[in-house]
């Protein structure tokens, strides 16, 4: 591996592995790190770990699903963020730019308001996110002859505000003792109740979304040049843009449908990844996914250990993300101009 490769791929991978073991170890029932390694090794080799069954239960049944969710959702949001930022040629763009979060939020809030099951709430959130972006995209496509990116962004802002108001309206009518806390908690994001079976469908959807990003990773670089330049270089930008938006939206909707709205990851992680791996998308995408997975795992581990009650993840990602973002803004030159 080249020196640069060690920097952007090797170090984050190593950090992620250590973080993974630490996250399995800490919590209300602490497990020694060497015991975590023993438990993992026992599973891999098929031998017995020789540890009490309670330890195995904590590691496999309680912590692992949640850790897997953090890794998957963190990687997904960062990949979507890197895609949106390249597509819109703007480092201030996050996966929410076209109204995914607001659409998913409205879907989930309606589900909670109508007292539906968790699976229905998730499905409504997923459909809401996709529906919001599809509407924005169709509005953008209808207004031809203008800067297509600008139309999309402005339509996305309008859609986000509209859906945000709709969410507020539902909150006004919601039962303040039962539904309102659930709504608030969902809108701030949490990985508390996630089980491995919950993760299977979103894993499938996220992989389906990641596939075109991976296959078209080099073409993504051309999209960052802007519409006319990319077309002059032989790129069918309208088709590719639709594919990238669909893929990133699929990924984001799937992720937020189980986690609730977790802001900032899709905004700041691509920046950090660009500092580490450069803007070339075939390096940026894996780097962003590694960092996103690690960041959400770290934040979620904090969320469940730092206080007696669970701290919503959305609050923590903002508390950590906003100062980091300002630091980047003040110091980073290579990240973007």
């Amino acid at each position, binding site marked *: 591996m080249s020196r640069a490769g060690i920097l952007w791929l090797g170090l984050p991978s190593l950090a992620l592995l250590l973080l993974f073991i630490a996250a399995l170890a800490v919590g209300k029932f602490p497990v020694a790190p060497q015991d975590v390694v023993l438990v993992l090794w026992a599973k891999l080799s098929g031998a017995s770990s020789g540890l009490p069954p309670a330890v195995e239960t904590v590691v496999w049944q309680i912590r692992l699903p949640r850790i897997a969710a953090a890794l998957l959702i963190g990687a997904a949001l960062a990949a979507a963020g890197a895609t949106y930022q*390249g597509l819109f*040629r*703007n*480092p201030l763009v996050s996966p929410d730019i076209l109204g995914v979060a607001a659409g998913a939020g409205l879907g989930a809030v309606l589900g909670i308001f109508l007292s539906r099951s968790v699976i229905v709430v998730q499905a409504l959130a997923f459909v809401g996110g996709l529906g919001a972006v599809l509407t924005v995209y169709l509005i953008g496509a209808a207004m*031809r*002859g203008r800067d297509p990116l600008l139309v999309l962004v402005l339509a996305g802002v309008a859609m986000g505000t509209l859906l945000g108001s709709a969410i507020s309206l539902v909150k006004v009518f919601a039962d303040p003792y039962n539904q309102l806390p659930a709504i608030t908690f969902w809108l701030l994001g949490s990985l508390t109740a996630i089980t491995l079976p919950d993760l299977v469908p979103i894993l499938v959807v996220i992989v389906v979304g990641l596939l075109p990003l991976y*296959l*078209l*990773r*080099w*073409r993504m*670089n*051309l999209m*960052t*040049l802007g519409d*006319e*330049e990319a*077309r*002059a*270089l*032989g*790129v*069918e930008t309208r088709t590719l843009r639709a594919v990238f938006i669909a893929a990133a939206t699929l990924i984001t909707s799937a992720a937020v449908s189980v986690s609730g709205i977790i802001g900032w990851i899709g905004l700041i992680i691509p920046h950090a990844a*660009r500092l580490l791996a*450069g*803007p*070339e998308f*075939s390096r940026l995408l894996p780097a962003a996914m590694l960092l996103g997975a690690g960041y959400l795992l770290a934040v979620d581990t904090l969320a469940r250990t730092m206080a007696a009650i669970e701290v919503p993840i959305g609050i923590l990602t903002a508390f950590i993300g906003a100062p980091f973002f300002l630091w980047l803004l003040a110091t980073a030159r*290579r*990240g*973007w*101009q």
Partner: protein
Amino acid sequence: MTLSTDNLGFGYRGKPVGRGVTIEIRAGEVLCLLGPNGGGKTTLMKTLLGLLPPQEGAVRLDGEDIAVWSRKRLARIVGYVPQAHAAFFPFTVIDIVLMGRSAHIGLFAAPSRADGEIARRALATLGIAHLADRVYTEISGGERQLVLIARALAQEPRILVMDEPTASLDFGNQVRVLRQIAALARSGIAVVFSTHDPDHVFLCGDRVALLHGGRMEEIGAPEAVITPASLKRLYGVEVQVVNLPDHDTRTCVPSVEGLRRRSTATWSSGSGRG
């Protein structure tokens, strides 16, 4: 390969910019577009590149209407050099030049080693091989313009459309870019470029088209087309066109009235430049 238009009307939807443009550009020829701001140069070039649909007439390559061509097919023949700009993300120079290969490689592919060699050769042709691993956003405006020309060369086009390639460059880089244009034409590429400097037309243009208010007023050899009368009509200022027989070119000198603030004795003859 011949690029031609017949009574081309161009502009944006609901906002026509120009019409009645008939031109033909052949291999190895340099055609300059000269005209005041708002004359329609950029819009015409975008239409020639197929980035804007023609409002009347058609753009043809060897007689075939390009409107039905795929972007990939078109990009293998027509290259575009935009004005040097700041990229949004800090790609390295070689990454930028490699992007010129996109019309030659598969949709899911990344550039191969052979593409890398073509890109490095393009950089070497322009004398900027040493910039390959520099960051595009950190080099000077003149270097960026050369990098964008290198990217267009990596595209291996037959026709090159350049939007004010000398604008915002210092004097040395202007001359370097003009030399490159002449060299490209010698290698058989047809070049269309727009400029604000009639001297550049004299230096390396085979023909010049005057664009004014969306109309092509004249097209022909620079010596025949660029005259005090035509420049007055285009720009509304008095200009003299001076022959420089020792240098085998001509230069345009604006009337000094209202400019001179020193006595004429301090000026030597023949060196005035607008």
